[in-house]
């Protein structure tokens, strides 16, 4: 019912606007075209300057309103570089924004039609044009310079001591794999994947390196102040590992592993205090459209201290152990089940 009334009000609004518009056209004809035009021009000229003033106030107000809701201090070392770059870009573009918008609306207001004014025939001026080619070029050189400096720092090779974790996206969840004590990931092949046989990544059990690989879902544990390198995969469509507080993002592409690395600065517990939010958790958001459950594809990152990390890791059972310890532990059975799993897929 309320919808109906809303439509009715809308319709009346239209009718009234239309009648006013029609009437003002007739009034315009009565007043004379010239006078009508001058009056409209003055109103719009005033609105131009009003828009400028209110707009700039609005920009300031919007900033005050939302500056507490955007990301605060970066939770990773790489993120600090991104924040510096953001600051430099914001200053340069901010200055250009304010100046050009003021000029635009100020000119519009100041040079509005007047019977007395003779417009100035000014088709070109090489000096001016060179100035405003060269000045943006210099500003952009600065931005490109800083940008690439940071970019290569962020995308460069991870330090050798970095912890390695494999992150795999699937519709609509995240799977994590830790290489275990041997620090080497076992081989995998996608045709071995079987959710029923608890082999979410298709690990090849014949490869001994795979035997101590820990596979978890939902939550990823990483160590604070230690570089961590993520090796990112996808099982089906393209996903994206988005880590807002670390300012990190990398696509998960089926068939093409990608990597990212960073150094987390604060543990989850520290962040809870810092943000005054006891429910805080670092989240992994999927940032690449991946199907109808895209918006539910949430993962959690627990940043913990070194001791907590080690303790957590030793408590984890390897995927291999989970699969085979329940089954009869005869060595023959192991190879058999490997074969079956391949055959099934």
């Amino acid at each position: 019912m309320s919808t109906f009334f809303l439509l009715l009000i809308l319709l009346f609004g239209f009718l009234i606007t239309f009648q006013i518009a029609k009437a003002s056209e007739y009034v315009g004809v009565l007043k004379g075209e010239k006078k009508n035009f001058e009056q409209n021009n003055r109103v719009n000229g005033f609105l131009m300057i009003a828009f400028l003033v209110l707009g700039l106030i609005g920009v300031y107000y919007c900033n005050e309103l939302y500056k507490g809701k955007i990301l605060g201090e970066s939770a990773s070392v790489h993120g600090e570089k991104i924040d510096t770059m953001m600051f430099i870009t914001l200053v340069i573009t901010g200055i250009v924004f304010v100046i050009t918008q003021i000029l635009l609306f100020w000119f519009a207001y100041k040079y509005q039609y007047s019977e007395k004014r003779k417009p100035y025939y000014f088709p070109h001026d090489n000096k001016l044009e060179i100035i405003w080619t060269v000045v943006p070029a210099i500003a952009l050189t600065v931005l490109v310079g800083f940008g690439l400096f940071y970019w290569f720092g962020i995308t460069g090779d991870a330090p050798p001591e970095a912890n390695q974790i494999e992150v795999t996206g699937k519709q609509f969840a995240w799977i994590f794999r830790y290489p275990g004590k041997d620090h080497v990931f076992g081989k995998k092949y996608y045709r071995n994947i079987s959710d029923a046989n608890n082999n979410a990544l298709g690990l090849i059990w014949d490869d001994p390196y795979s035997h101590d690989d820990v596979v978890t879902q939902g939550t990823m544990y990483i160590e604070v102040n230690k570089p961590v390198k993520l090796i990112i995969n996808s099982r089906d469509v393209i996903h994206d590992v988005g880590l807002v507080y670390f300012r990190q993002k990398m696509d998960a592409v089926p068939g093409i592993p990608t990597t990212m690395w960073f150094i987390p600065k604060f543990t989850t517990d520290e962040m809870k205090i810092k943000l005054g939010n006891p429910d805080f958790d670092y989240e992994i958001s999927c940032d690449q459209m991946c199907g109808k459950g895209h918006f539910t594809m949430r993962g959690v990152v627990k940043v913990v201290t070194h001791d907590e990390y080690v303790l957590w890791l030793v408590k984890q059972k390897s995927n291999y152990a989970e699969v085979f310890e329940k089954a009869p532990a005869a060595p023959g059975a192991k190879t058999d089940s490997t074969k079956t799993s391949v055959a099934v897929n």
Partner: protein
Amino acid sequence: MSNEATLHGHPEVTTHDVHLDEHGVHHHKETFITKYVFSQDHKMIAKQFLITGMVWAILGALMSVLFRLQLGYPDTTFPWLEDILGSKWAKGGHIQPEFYYALVTMHGTVLVFFVLTGGLSGTFANFLIPLQVGARDMASPFLNMLSYWFFFTASIVMLSSLFVESGPASGGWTTYVPLSALADASDGSRAGMDLWISSMALFVVSSLLGGLNYISTILNLRTKGMSMTRLPLTIWAILFTAILGVLSFPVLLSGLILLLFDRHAGTSFYLDKIFIASTQQALPNEGGSAILYQHLFWFLGHPEVYIIILPAMGLVSEVMAVNSRKPIFGYMAMVGSLFAICVLAFLVWAHHMFVTGLNPLLGSVFVLLTLLIAIPSAIKVFNWLTTLWRGNLRFTPGMLFAIGFVSMFISGGLTGIFLGNSTLDIQLHDTYFVIAHFHIVMGVSGMLGMFAGIYHWFPKMYGRYLNNTMAYIHFWVTFVGAYLIFWPMHYEGLAGMPRRYLTYSNWISFNQFADLNKFISTVAMVVFAVQLLFVFNFFYSIFKGRRVVSQNPWGSTTLEWTAPIRPGHGNWPGEIPEVHRWAYDYAKDGREFIPQTEPLGSNESAH
């Protein structure tokens, strides 16, 4: 057509010319079908493109209103939605995820291709090229007619995809593979995706037929004296737009054909090592590259945004000069910067792919090339500002939209400097910052440029004016509303809020903007209502608007205003006018304006 006579220029056979021309104008008896449906008159084809584009714009905007309803009021139920859309798509008065993704996909596709490419270029290229270069019609009126009817067919196919049982394409307007290739990964990748591909194929054909026609007309059918540097900037902009389209649309088509093969012929161009959870099956495809599709898509996709914005720039330059009563500042720099943008447009596509795992060194090249585009863009902005400087501005509705365009283009262009910088793109990629950026710089600017054109040339199209009061309301609400909608989205982006989420309530990091989302949705509905006011004004004024009584109501120098108020097929009843000067002799030598057709005075210098 009788262009031949004029082109070959035999002044001594004037009588013959006139005879030919009369012949050209009146020889065919026009029926309703040939005049309004299968018309070969460029002006009628332009109107067909415009009105089809308007229908699409309303549908596309309506889709955005529907999904903004969900985003702004995630907890409210709208039972009438279920009444209208059925329980599959709006169960319990809530927009369902499948439908939400279908809506955002169709909104993007419709607005980018059918409104801002077909609607914008189709309308103004067809309408303005022959009238402003001084030609009877396009180089090939028949191909031109086909171009519209391919566009129309593409529209019908796209529209029909809304009604298939599994729903329309819903993988985003970029239809990234493998999502769009795998029916089991998404319902939208079933029949809807095939229709999407077919429709786009037809659209590419339409765009190529149109584009080749625009290029050949501009290059070959200019009237006597109309050298390239005397062309109005609208024509230059359309020329570069057409070149961009002709060179990049085939690449999209090839990418889509490979996609079609992957979908139905068992090939593996894009597919590699995929396990589908819903069916628990590993696909046999190996060795393809999902990233290849993105390269092919963005090789069109990026030039596409310039295909949208260049015509708008051309329209704005023209409207602004006319209503500033002053030449456009730096004509050659304007042409040069259009050219630079056109070239660079082909060299920046991978800036959409910084976080796909692209080699960082390759990424850095694309950073450099992308930020280079800011230079010609800056030149254009400063030249527009200088055009206003010391002018005598008439705030006609067209002029207001032109000024609004420049403001929007500045705002959106500057945020492009953030996104083109790969370092910042890591943080901002696929967040609301991107939505804010491209809507302001491409969507809103493109629409404002188009409105500037519509208001300015409506009198030439229909011989009547649009109602001014409604036009002013339309402008101010649209302009202010667009800023209110898209400006705060930058902050959502800076908070890392991802695009294409149905709801944010299950997230700790992104749920702080509920009030803002509600505000944005409300403003979006108001702006939508005002667009309906414009549509009403448009159709009402075609029949009942104030009549145009003078041939040149804006006091403009260009050729279209030397044609009769309601030009017939062939545009000029007598000879095609000859051109003696550039298009921007305003305020020269103390005269308000000097038409292009007026010969240079004995001691007058060319510009």
